[in-house]
């Protein structure tokens, strides 16, 4: 059992979910209620990681993060190490490939809020911020929660992108999914089996949470 890889995966999953929470809320709310030119295109672009092969995403990210790109060189000049093959690079990749998992459930949740609720609240003299925090967010909370859970679980399981931009460095970019692959190659099937079971359990728990929230108070 590679505890270091499990810890790294958990850190990556928590950080990804935390970064996508505010971003996802803003984007999901905008997509749910605003009509603007290019909205369909934006929705399609955000859903792209659902269907794109991880290697395609990995290839583009590696090109973008590497020392041959302005982004990669800029990051290197700023921080002193390249974005590719680092935890920061993994986090950036993770945020991108989780966009649809974060945005879509939140968007559905905000869409489900009746259109006249907000004007009614405004009539009562509530500020936009209070309407958001006291009315919208509690109503959309099950969707937001399932976004977070899905993002978390999906990050734990992602393999292709991580292998391509991460490079399998212990303690830095070797996530639990990559560690399983690594242990199988080292003929250490016992460790691979234990880690696979841990991931199976975590994924099952995450899906159970996501389903129970989706069927919970939101429908009521």
């Amino acid at each position: 059992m590679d505890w270091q890889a499990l810890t790294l995966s958990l850190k990556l999953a928590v950080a990804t979910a935390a970064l996508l929470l505010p971003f996802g809320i803003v984007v999901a709310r905008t997509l749910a209620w605003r009509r603007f030119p290019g909205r369909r295109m934006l929705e399609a672009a955000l859903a792209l990681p659902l269907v794109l092969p991880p290697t395609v995403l990995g290839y583009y990210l590696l090109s973008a993060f590497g020392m041959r790109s302005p982004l990669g060189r800029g990051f290197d000049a700023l921080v002193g190490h390249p974005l590719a093959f680092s935890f920061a690079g993994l986090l950036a990749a993770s945020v991108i490939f989780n966009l649809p998992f974060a945005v879509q459930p939140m968007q559905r949740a905000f869409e489900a809020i009746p259109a006249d609720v907000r004007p009614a609240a405004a009539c009562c003299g509530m500020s936009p911020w209070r309407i958001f925090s006291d009315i919208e967010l509690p109503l959309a909370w099950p969707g937001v929660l399932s976004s977070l859970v899905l993002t978390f679980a999906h990050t734990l399981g992602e393999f292709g992108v991580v292998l391509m931009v991460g490079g399998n460095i212990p303690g830095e970019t070797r996530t639990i999914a990559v560690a399983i692959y690594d242990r199988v190659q080292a003929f250490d099937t016992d460790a691979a089996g234990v880690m696979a079971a841990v991931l199976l359990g975590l994924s099952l728990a995450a899906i159970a949470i996501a389903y129970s929230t989706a069927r919970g108070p939101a429908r009521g």
Partner: protein
Amino acid sequence: MFHRIRRLLVLAAAFALAATARAADVPNVAAASDLQFALPEIAAAFARATGREVRLSFGSSGNFRRQIGDGAPFELFLSADAGYVDVLARDGRTEGDGVVYAIGRLALFVPNGSPIEPDATLQDVARALQDGRLVKFAIANPEHAPYGRAAREALMRAGLWQAIGPKLVLGENVSQAAQFTASGAAQAGLVPDSLARAPALAARGRFVVVPASMHAPLVQKMVLLRGAGSTARAFYDFLRQPAAAAIFDRYGFEAPPAASAVR
């Protein structure tokens, strides 16, 4: 509601910061997959002797050569050939030209229950190809794995390369090729001797070392990468000590010719 979210955010930010902070001088070492079993033993001996640790990553040499070219944070690279090290040295990615640390040997590995007899010149593989006993044959990808290249040369030398083409399964590196074979998914495979004789594999089949004359020598070179710290340097030196040589020898590696040991 908002306190909950804010607390979550602060927690996550702290996590992210902690994760990006780098550990002390524990260098990342990129090593060819044929060292999968020998190198951890050498690293353990190094830790016992010096109290210092290294972090090992295994993969195909060609893949590491590309990742190091892209700036991957490795301090020492143990390649399964000399070419990739020379290219990195020419590109100014290394400190010095590196040194040969071992000569690798190729083995024909046949899993338990396979209908194929292991022989050094691949004669039964040739017969099995004719009579249909051979369904899948595993090698590492010759495009970026030196042992895959050696396997291709050996198959060419045996006159089997054309005929065996449709039966080949390519491992992304030698460990995967060995995995394909040891699991019985392939009836035979050409893998490093250093993997074939490791207990984890040896228990799962039989193997025979392929004559060195059947492929270009697998001259395995290692090199310190630019910015290598003192632990990486100490490990680099340790790899040329008798203690390390004994472990390399036990895993079937041949000692480098004396002349090339001069850096």
